[in-house]
C-alpha cells in the first residue's frame, strides 16, 4: 500500500495549498450565537487540530465543513466557507455530494448495527452500483488503509460490535475512507479510547495525511502537539460564543504562543 510508506514528520504546512477556508464565519443556533467571525485556512494534506475548552464551539466548527449543522433545526450560518474555492453554503451545493467529499469520524465509535463488511460497504453501496467484486476490493483496501485489515479479515461477517473500541473507531475511519473523501473531519476520535488505541489512531492519522486533509477536534493538548501540523485555538467569549483566538503551525503555537490566553490554556492554567 502506498500509504504504508515511511512517516514524514514536520512537513512545513505553509507550503501547502489551502483546502478549506472560512471567512468571517458566524454560526447561530436559533437566537444564540455559537461561533463569531472565524477566518481560518485549512492546509491541504495536513492535520489541523482545533483545540479549546469544552463548550467553546470546536465540534460546531468542525461540523461547518460537512454541513452537519444543517440537521439541527434553527442552525444558521453567515460568512463564507469554501472547499477548493467553492462556497459550500451556496444554494446550488448538494449536501449529499459535499458529505461524500468531506467525511466525518465521531467522538464515540458509532459503527452501524451490521457486520464489519457491511459497515465499510455502506457508503459505496449507497453511492452507486458496484459489483460484488468491486465492493470486496473497496472494503479490503479501506480496511488496509485504516490499519484494521489484519485484525478483522477473519471476522468480516461478524457484528461490528464484537470489535474493541479502538477497532470500532478504525472501522469508522475505514467506513469513511471507502467513500473516497478528500477531507476527513475527526471529532475527538480518541476520547473514548485507551492510550494504546489512541496511539494507533494517531499513527493512522499521520499516514492518512499523506493523501487526505484532516481536521481533528481534540481536548488533549499532547495529542494536538504530537499529531497535528497546524493548530487553531478556540475560546468562548462572553457566555457561549466561540471565537478564534490564535492559529498557526503547531510547533509555534505550542512553543511561542502569541496570545496570553493561548499560553494559559496550553499550559493548563484554565480549561
Amino acid at each position, binding site marked *: 500500500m502506498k500509504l504504508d510508506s515511511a512517516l514524514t514528520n514536520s512537513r512545513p504546512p505553509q507550503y501547502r495549498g489551502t483546502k478549506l477556508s472560512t471567512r468571517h464565519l458566524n454560526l447561530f443556533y436559533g437566537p444564540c450565537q455559537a461561533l463569531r467571525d472565524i477566518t481560518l485556512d485549512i492546509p491541504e494534506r495536513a492535520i489541523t487540530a482545533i483545540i479549546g475548552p469544552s463548550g467553546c464551539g470546536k465540534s460546531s466548527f468542525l461540523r461547518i465543513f460537512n454541513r452537519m449543522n444543517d440537521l439541527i433545526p434553527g442552525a444558521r450560518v453567515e460568512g463564507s466557507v469554501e472547499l477548493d474555492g467553492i462556497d459550500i453554503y451556496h444554494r446550488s451545493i448538494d449536501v449529499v455530494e459535499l*458529505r461524500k467529499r468531506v467525511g466525518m469520524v465521531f467522538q464515540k465509535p458509532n459503527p452501524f448495527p451490521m457486520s464489519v463488511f457491511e459497515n465499510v460497504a455502506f457508503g459505496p453501496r*449507497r453511492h452507486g452500483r458496484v459489483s460484488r467484486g468491486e465492493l470486496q476490493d473497496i472494503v479490503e483496501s479501506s480496511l488496509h488503509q485504516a490499519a484494521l485489515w489484519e485484525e478483522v479479515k477473519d471476522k468480516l461477517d461478524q457484528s461490528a460490535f464484537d470489535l474493541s473500541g479502538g477497532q470500532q473507531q478504525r472501522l469508522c475511519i475505514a467506513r469513511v475512507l471507502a*467513500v473516497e473523501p478528500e477531507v476527513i473531519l475527526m471529532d475527538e476520535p480518541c476520547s473514548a479510547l485507551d492510550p494504546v488505541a489512541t496511539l494507533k489512531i494517531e499513527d493512522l492519522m499521520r499516514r492518512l495525511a499523506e493523501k487526505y486533509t484532516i481536521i481533528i477536534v481534540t481536548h488533549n493538548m499532547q495529542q494536538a502537539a504530537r499529531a497535528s501540523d497546524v493548530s487553531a485555538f478556540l475560546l468562548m467569549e462572553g457566555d457561549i460564543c466561540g471565537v478564534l483566538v490564535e492559529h498557526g503551525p503547531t510547533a509555534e503555537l505550542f512553543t511561542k504562543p502569541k496570545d496570553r490566553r493561548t499560553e494559559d490554556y496550553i499550559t493548563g492554567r484554565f480549561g
Partner: protein
Amino acid sequence: MRKRSASIAIARDARTKGLQRRWRVGERVIEGGIFLASLLAIVVLLGIVAVLLRQGLPIFAHTPPWEFLFGTKWYPVSEPPTFGTTTFFVATIWVPVVATVIAVPIGVACAAYLAEVAPSSVRESVKPVIELLAGIPSVVIGFIGLLLLSPLVQSMFNLNTGLSGLAAGIMLSLMSLPIIVSVSEDALRAIPDEFRQAAYALGATRWEVVRHVSIPAALSGISAAIMLGVGRAIGETMTVLMIAGGALAVPVSPTQPMMPMTAAIASGIGNAVRGGPQYQALFAIGLLLFLITLAVNLIADRVLERQKRKFVR
C-alpha cells in the same frame, strides 16, 4: 472453634462501629409484594389454560381430534351433531392476513414518517390522534364497517354481499394500525442518533438513512409491533362477528363471507347447553385459538431473540 470466636469478634466490632447487618423490613415487604404480583400473572395464565383444557378436552371423546381439526361440517344441533372447525380456522387465517397486509406497510411508513421526518410539532399532535384510534370500541368499528365499508366492498368486487373476510380485514387493519404505528415509532426513536449522524456524514440521503439504517436497527421493535398487531387481529371478536359475514363454508377467497373462530365462539356460546358437546367444542376452539396466539408469540420471541443476538451493543 477459632473460626467461630473470630466471627463473634467481627460481629461485635461491627456492632460498635454501626456496621452490623440490618433487617430492613420495608425492603422485604416490597420485594415479596413484587414477587407475588408477578406470580399472580403466571397463576392466572395457568388457570385459564386449565379451564380451557377441562372444559374443552372432553369433546374429543365425542369427536376425534382429526375430525375436529380438519372436518368442515359444523352442525352442533343435528342428531348426531358434528364438530368440524376447519371453516373457522381458515377464516381466522384470512382475516388477520388481510389486516396485516394492509396495516404493516402503512403502519411502518407512518411510524417512519413520525420518527424520522416529521417536525416535532407535527409528531406531537399526530401521534396522540393515532393512538386515539386504538380507543375506539370495536363495536363502533363494526358499525362503520357495516354501514360504510361493506357496500363499498360489495360494489368494488361485484359481490352478493359486502360482508366478507375482506371487509373485516380492512376494519381490523384500522384497529391494529395504532399499535403498529405507536410501537414501531417508539422503536425507531430509540435508535441512537449516532447511527443516523454517521449515515448522513457518509452522504446518505434521508430515505437511505431511514431505509438502510433506522429501520434495520429498529427491526426487532418493529417486528414486535407487527406481532402485537397480528395478535390483535386474531383475537378481535366483535368486529368480525358483525362484518365478516358469518358463513359456514370454508372460504377460499377473502371476498367470501366467513366466520372466524372468535366469532364462532361468541355467537355459539349463548345457545350452547352448559357442559354439552357444543359447549365443549366451543371451549376446544378457544383452546385452539389460545395455541395459535401462543405460537405467534413464541415465533415473534424467537425472531426478536435472534435479531438481538446478531447485533447487540
